[in-house]
C-alpha cells in the first residue's frame, strides 16, 4: 500500500473537513446566546462596606467635576429616598445605547460604577438610524441586552409586547423617589398605568428661539429679554433680518418624518389642539385650530417669506444657522451645544418662542428613556444600572455640551436641570420654565407613530414646498391620511 496520499483521497478529506466545519458553525450559530451571567450574589439587601465616604450608589452620586477630586464634604445632598450604602451586587450586564456622546459618557462613569457595585457592564452601541432595528432583531433572537436606551414613542410598543420589565415593584422595594424627575417625564414613561422606564434625557420640544446675536446687532434690531410679545412681533423682526440671501427665521423642520410630527405639533399645541385626540384614536387635523396652525406655517414660509422652505431643509436644523444663512432658529435644548460647533464664529443667544393663540408655546416632554429587558437574569444589577443612567451625575454630563457633537439636552431630573454646572451655560436658563411646564406627548392608541409620522410628513411636504396651498381639500387629505393609520389594529 502506498504511503503517499492520492489526490483523490486528499480532496475527499478536504471536502469532509470543510463540510464538518460548516456543520459545526451552523450548530453553534443556531444555539442561543448565553443570557447575562447570573451574579454570584443576588442579595441587594446586603450592604458591603463602602470603599470611601464618597462612594455612593449611582442614583445619589455627587456630580463629578473632571477638574476636581470629589470631596465628601462638598458632595451634593443625595436624594432623600436613595439608599446610603454601596451595594456589591456583582454580575455582568449588557447595555445598549446609541453611538455618540451618550456612549462617551458611559466610558466616564462605568468604571466607578463597577468599582462600587461589582457589576461589569458591557456597552454595545448602534447608530441612531439603525438602533431600533438592531435591538428588535436582538430581541427576536433572545439576545437583547439587559438594559437599553429607548424613546417615549417606542417604549409603549415594547411594553405592549412584554419585552421590557415593569419597574413599579423595583421602585417600591427600593423606595425610589420618582419626584426627582419632572412629572411629564414620568408620565411619558408609563404605559397603561405602569412604569416601564426612567427618564434618561428630557427636552420640551422645539420651543426655544435661538438667534445670531451678531447678525441681529448689525441689523439694528433689539431683541426682547425673554420672549416676543406676539407672533406678529417675531414676524416683523424676521422680515427685517431676511435679506442678502438669508432668512430671518427657520422652523425646526428637516427631511426627517418624526421631526416634522414633533415640530408641527408644537404649533398645534400653541394653537390649543394636538394631532391626536386624548385617547389617541382620532386625528384632530380637521379641527379649525389645527388648520389655522398649519396655515400659519405656510404663511411664514410663502406669504411673509421669512422662514426657510422645504427646498432648503437640511438634515440638521442647525446647519443653516451655522452657515450664517438664518438669523433666528426655532429649536430644542440639544441646540445649546451649537456654540461648540461655531468655535466663536458668532454669538448665539436664545428666548422663549412666542405664545400662540392657545395662550401657550406648545411644549411636549420629549424623553429619551432607559428600560430593562424583561428577561434579564440579574434584575437587581440591571436596576442599579438604570438608576445610574438616570441619575444626577450622568444627567449633568449629558447636558454638558463639552464639544464635538455633544448634545445639550440634560437628564430628566429636576436637580440636574437646576445644577450650577448646567446653569453656567447662558443658553440654558430659558429651559427652566419650558421643562417645568412641559406636557407629555400624546401617542396613537395603536402605537403606529412611525406610520403616522410618514403619512403626515409626506402629505404636508407640498405645502412646505409651496406647491400646494393649505385649503380645505388639503386638510381633508391630511386628516384622512393620518386617520387611516390610526384605524389600523395595534402594531
Amino acid at each position, binding site marked *: 500500500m502506498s504511503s503517499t496520499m492520492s489526490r483523490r483521497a486528499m480532496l475527499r478529506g478536504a471536502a469532509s473537513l470543510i463540510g464538518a466545519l460548516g456543520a459545526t458553525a451552523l450548530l453553534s450559530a443556531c444555539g442561543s446566546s448565553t443570557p447575562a451571567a447570573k451574579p454570584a450574589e443576588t442579595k441587594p439587601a446586603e450592604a458591603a462596606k463602602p470603599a470611601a465616604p464618597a462612594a455612593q450608589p449611582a442614583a445619589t452620586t455627587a456630580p463629578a467635576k473632571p477638574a476636581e477630586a470629589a470631596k465628601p464634604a462638598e458632595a451634593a445632598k443625595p436624594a432623600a429616598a436613595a439608599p446610603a450604602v454601596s451595594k456589591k451586587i456583582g454580575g455582568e450586564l449588557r447595555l445598549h445605547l446609541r453611538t455618540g456622546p451618550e456612549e462617551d459618557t458611559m466610558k466616564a462613569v462605568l468604571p466607578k460604577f463597577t468599582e462600587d457595585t461589582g457589576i461589569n457592564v458591557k456597552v454595545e452601541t448602534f447608530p441612531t438610524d439603525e438602533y431600533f432595528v438592531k435591538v428588535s*432583531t436582538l430581541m427576536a433572537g433572545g439576545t437583547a441586552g439587559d438594559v437599553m436606551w429607548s424613546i417615549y414613542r417606542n417604549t409603549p410598543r415594547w411594553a405592549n409586547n412584554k419585552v421590557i420589565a415593569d419597574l413599579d415593584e423595583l421602585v417600591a422595594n427600593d423606595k425610589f423617589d420618582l419626584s426627582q424627575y419632572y412629572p411629564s417625564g414620568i408620565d411619558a414613561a408609563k404605559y397603561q398605568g405602569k412604569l416601564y422606564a426612567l427618564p434618561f434625557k428630557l427636552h420640551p420640544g422645539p420651543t426655544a428661539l435661538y438667534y445670531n446675536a451678531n447678525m441681529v446687532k448689525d441689523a439694528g434690531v433689539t431683541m426682547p429679554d425673554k420672549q416676543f410679545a406676539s407672533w406678529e412681533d417675531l414676524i416683523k423682526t424676521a422680515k427685517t433680518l431676511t435679506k442678502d440671501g438669508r432668512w430671518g427665521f427657520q422652523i425646526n423642520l428637516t*427631511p426627517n*418624518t418624526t421631526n416634522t410630527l414633533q415640530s408641527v405639533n408644537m404649533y398645534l399645541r400653541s394653537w390649543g389642539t394636538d394631532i391626536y385626540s386624548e385617547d389617541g384614536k382620532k386625528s384632530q387635523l380637521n379641527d379649525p385650530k389645527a388648520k389655522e396652525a398649519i396655515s400659519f406655517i405656510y404663511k411664514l414660509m410663502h406669504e411673509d417669506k421669512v422662514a426657510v422652505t422645504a*427646498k432648503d431643509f437640511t438634515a440638521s436644523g442647525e446647519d443653516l444657522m451655522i452657515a450664517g444663512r438664518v438669523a433666528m432658529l426655532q429649536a430644542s435644548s440639544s441646540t445649546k451645544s451649537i456654540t461648540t460647533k461655531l468655535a466663536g464664529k458668532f454669538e448665539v443667544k436664545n428666548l422663549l418662542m412666542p405664545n400662540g393663540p392657545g395662550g401657550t408655546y406648545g411644549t411636549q416632554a420629549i424623553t429619551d428613556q432607559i428600560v430593562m429587558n424583561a428577561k434579564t437574569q440579574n434584575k437587581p444589577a440591571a436596576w442599579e444600572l438604570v438608576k445610574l443612567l438616570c441619575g444626577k451625575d450622568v444627567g449633568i454630563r449629558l447636558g454638558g455640551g463639552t464639544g464635538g457633537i455633544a448634545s445639550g439636552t440634560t437628564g430628566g431630573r429636576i436637580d440636574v436641570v437646576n445644577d450650577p454646572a448646567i446653569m453656567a451655560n447662558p443658553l440654558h436658563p430659558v429651559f427652566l420654565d419650558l421643562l417645568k411646564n412641559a406636557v407629555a406627548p400624546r401617542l396613537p392608541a395603536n402605537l403606529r407613530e412611525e406610520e403616522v409620522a410618514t403619512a403626515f410628513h409626506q402629505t404636508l*411636504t407640498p405645502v412646505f414646498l409651496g*406647491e400646494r396651498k393649505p385649503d380645505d381639500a388639503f386638510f381633508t387629505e391630511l386628516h384622512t391620511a393620518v386617520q387611516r393609520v390610526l384605524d389600523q389594529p395595534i402594531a
Partner: protein
Amino acid sequence: MSTSSSALAAQPARRGSSPLTRRRAIEGYLYISPFLLGFLIFTAYPLVMSFYLSFTNYNIISDPVWAGLENYRRAFFEDDLFWSSLGRTGKYALWVVPLGIVCSLLAAMLLNQGLPGTTIFRTIFFLPSITPIIASVLIWLWILQPSIGVMNYLLSLVGIPGPAWVQSTAWAMPSLVLLSLWNTAGGSRMIVFLAGLQGVPQELYEAAHIDGASAWQRFWHVTIPMISPTIFFNLVISVIGALSVFSVAYIGTQGGPAYATYFYVYHLYVSAFQYSLMGYASALAWVFLLIVLFLTVLQFNLQSRWVFYAGDEKSGGKDNG
C-alpha cells in the same frame, strides 16, 4: 464461465446500487457541501420562512400570529401605498429601462469604433458603475441642490431657472432617473453590448455596404438583429433592476417629497424595518416576486418575435455559407 459472464453482461446496471457509485455520490455531495449549506441556510430557509411569515402578523419582538390571507387582502384592497408605489415603480422602469439600454448601446457603439483612447474611455464610462451608490447619491444631491447646486448654477448661466430637482414633487423622479442612468449606462450593460457588437461578422456589413445600404440601414438591418440576443439579455436584467429600485430613494429622498419617489421596494423596506410589520412586508415581497416572474416569463415568451439567433431556422437566420 463465459455463459455466466455474458449473462452478467446482459443484465442492465442498476444506478446507485453499487458501493462505488454510492461512495462517489457521497463524495460529490461533500464537495458541494459548503455551497449547499450556505444555500440552505442563507437562501432556502429565509425563502421558506418569509413565505410562512407572509401569512402571519409578526412584529419581530413577539411570536408570529397566524393571520391567513389578511396581509395579502390588506395589500390589494386597503393599502393605498401598495398600488401607488407599484405604479410609481412601473413609471420609473418605463423611463430607466429604454433610456438605459439606448445610452449603454450608444456608449458601446462609440467604444466599438476602434478610435485612439478607447481603453481610457471604456474605463471612464465604467467608473460610475463601480462608485458606491451612497457616494453617487450624495454627490448628485449636492449637484442638484436647488439654491447652491452646480446644476442650477450652470443653467442660470444660460438664463434657465433650474427646478428644485429632488425637492420638487414634479422633478424628484426625473432626478433619480438621471442619477440611475449616470450610474448604470456605462456599466456592465455597456460591456455586454460591446461584446455583442464585436461579435457581429464584418462580412455582413461589407455585404450590406456593397448592396448600397446607408449607415442607418446597416445599423437597423444588420447590427440590431445580430445583437438582439444581447438586447434581450440586457432588457431582462434591466427590467428586474429597475423594478427593484430602492437605494437611490432610500439615500436620496426617503420616498419623498410627497411620495413622489416612494417606490415599491422602499415601501416594503419601510413596512419591515421602520414599522416592524414583518408579516406584511413578507407578503409584499412575495407579490413582488410574482410580478417580476410574470414579466420575465412574458419577455421570454415574446422573444421569438424579435430576437434573432444566428443559425436558428425559426428566426430565419439561415447560414449563407
